[in-house]
């Protein structure tokens, strides 16, 4: 018998107050002052209820790098951050470029059972950019893959990119491009600009991102296919996406929480916890990204959660791995950068962090309006309560959060996944 719940006193994204009753995996009733005998009460006074968050960009490291993260530990980090669905990037070892690997990851997600883990398939074999991976087989597998990406590597060959965009139209798939012109970024360590010129770290110019975005929106237009741009970081990239959308090109774009908050000034510490790909940019890029997320030019927030073991970060900057943790802090950073700044309201957050990512990836049980009869995938958070990020207390197996020590607003109180309480905060 499944437990039933009542979420008491919550505020819905558009501002109305309602209690929410949950049973058998679904939302069963919504009304003020629900009183259901036998149901477990979740006190959500002063809290916001969002449709459960969906991440389109997660690195779970399993198989291959289980010391950094596993599907289970990544799921635990996800539910703490309010997520009900993660999209596991393909750069595992072995690479998720066959039906076998994506099914393995999918099953590991089901065994963990805390949220949905949807594997992303590689676009090319071994992420090498040379020949297409078994895209059709992955789409037809038990994992029903719809998003394909060589993330970490750019699909730089324009012919390969064209073919991939065309091929996934067969099953309404989408190519998620890591936009990075490889020749312009050989050995690159951080944003190219004043700070890199002073630090003597090799620059990663904005143009290397923008050139690929420009090429790929034109390709997507030409073949009438769906393109998704991963982790947009530059003001110039925003301009190209804006132009493409005006032209009616089927392009969507994501931004990470860290690119909405942090800048390349942090590299001055030479602490590789701030080393990420694409790199942290300048203050004016951050402002352009916030504006673009607010006006919808950027469609979604995705974490690019990238766990790394200590030895990959406790070293010289240029020896360190790229990437930072993101799942557990994403919602509070969006609260800080977008809601508290009045750029976006909570229904905007629901759009950008749940509804739209689920729509892009075709995750049918996710990103639904909070309504009677919908699957009970919900995130309950107190937006005014603050907490201090402590890398020693994260659920992830890794500690590489750039937000360590920061005071952030917004504590996830509870996460519901298919009607089950997958996470509940220990503090009221």
């Amino acid at each position, binding site marked *: 018998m499944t437990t039933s719940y009542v979420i008491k006193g919550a505020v819905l994204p558009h501002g109305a107050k309602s209690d929410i009753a949950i049973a058998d995996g679904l939302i069963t009733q919504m009304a003020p002052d629900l009183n259901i005998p036998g149901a477990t009460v979740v006190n959500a006074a002063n809290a916001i209820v969002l449709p459960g968050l969906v991440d389109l960009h997660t690195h779970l490291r399993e198989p291959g790098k289980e010391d950094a993260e596993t599907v289970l530990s990544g799921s635990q980090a996800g539910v703490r951050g309010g997520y009900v669905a993660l999209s596991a990037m393909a750069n595992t070892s072995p690479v998720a470029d066959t039906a076998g690997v994506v099914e393995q990851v999918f099953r590991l997600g089901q065994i963990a059972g805390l949220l949905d883990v949807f594997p992303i398939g590689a676009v090319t074999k071994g992420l090498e950019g040379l020949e297409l991976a078994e895209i059709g087989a992955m789409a037809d597998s038990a994992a029903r893959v719809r998003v394909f990406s060589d993330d970490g590597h750019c699909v730089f060959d324009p012919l390969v990119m064209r073919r991939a965009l065309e091929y996934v139209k067969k099953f309404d798939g989408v190519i998620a491009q890591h936009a990075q012109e490889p020749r312009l970024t050989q050995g690159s*360590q951080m944003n*190219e*600009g*004043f*700070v*890199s*010129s*002073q*630090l*003597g*770290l*090799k*620059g990663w*110019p904005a143009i290397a991102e923008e050139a690929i975005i420009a090429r790929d929106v034109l390709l997507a237009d030409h073949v009438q296919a769906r393109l998704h741009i991963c982790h947009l970081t530059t003001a110039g990239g925003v301009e190209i996406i804006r132009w493409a959308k005006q032209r009616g090109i089927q392009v969507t774009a994501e931004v990470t929480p860290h690119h909405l908050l942090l800048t390349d000034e942090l590299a001055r*510490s*030479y*602490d590789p916890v701030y080393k990420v790909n694409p790199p942290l940019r300048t203050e004016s890029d951050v402002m352009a990204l916030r504006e673009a997320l607010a006006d919808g030019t950027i469609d979604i927030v995705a974490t690019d959660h990238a766990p790394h073991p200590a*030895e990959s970060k*406790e*070293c*010289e*900057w*240029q*020896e360190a791995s790229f990437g930072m943790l993101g799942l557990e802090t994403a919602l509070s950073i969006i609260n800080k950068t977008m809601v508290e700044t009045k750029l976006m309201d909570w229904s905007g957050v629901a759009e950008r962090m749940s509804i739209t990512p689920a729509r892009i990836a075709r995750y049918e049980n996710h990103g639904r309006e909070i309504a009677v009869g919908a699957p009970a995938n919900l995130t309950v958070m107190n937006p005014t309560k603050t907490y201090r990020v402590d890398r020693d207390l994260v659920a992830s197996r890794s500690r590489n959060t750039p937000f360590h020590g920061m005071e952030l607003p917004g504590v996830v109180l509870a996460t519901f996944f298919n009607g089950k309480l997958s996470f509940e905060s220990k503090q009221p």
Partner: protein
Amino acid sequence: MRHLLSIADLSATQAIQILDTAEELSRVSDGPMKKLPTLRGRTIVNLFAEDSTRTRISFEAAAKRLSADVINFSAKGSSVSKGESLKDTAQTLQAMGADAVIIRHSASGAAQRLADSQWMTGSVINAGDGTHEHPSQALLDAFTIRKNLVRGGNDLTGIRVAIVGDIIHSRVARSNVLLLTKLGAHVTLVAPPTLLPAGVESWPVTVAYDFDSVIADVDVVMMLRIQLERMSEMFFPNVREYSHYFGLNRDRLKMMRPNAIVMHPGPMNRGLEITADSADSARSVILQQVTNGVTVRMAILYLLLAGSQESGAQV
């Protein structure tokens, strides 16, 4: 002052204190006996994860003249080149009781990583980190400029310096730009646009692409080494063309102001960025730079290590 990581961390007063201390020490080094007891019992490790015989020997001579015990931990014989992490190396040095580590490393920021980490407690002296900084080189350059060109002042106010060559990859250029401008000099960078970093427009310098338009107006011409291993990255078409536009040769030497001097941090590519007759001309102070390197490094070691570690140098 506990570490010397970057010129950016020094005030002008602190920099001048180092130069003044070197000035006093140079008299000692000129004398018949070359050893002072000042750092007796202190252990200094030369951690050279990148080949640089000159800088290592210079620091070693400086440390030995101050009676410190010197341990050389060089790339060839050590595990740094074999993938042992900087952290493990630092912890090993800590366990060996190093009072200071002089580090040369191919990674920008390696010295700062060592100093900021909890891996070791001693002083860290940056002897060149990647393409970031080489503070002791800039200090010896400033010392050499002051000795040759400054009469009746302790800084470099009004001195005009041209730094010529591969700016983008040069830690010597970065440290010198910071130090020389801090001390009042005017710096012009001369290089092909490909060898200037994006962001240079925000540096406190003038940038020029034409060496000939600059050379007659400066008091110091500082030539940088062109690293031949970078040739594959297409920064300029070929060596001959580079020498033609940016090399120091007899004709350009003639254009220089009467008292202007020629500097080079070494090792030189004779015939590439500098012709042999320029390097050996009466204007050249390149060998003085080597000599001054020892006394300036003695001054750095003295100010960092002679006093109590807790309080650091007071200026």
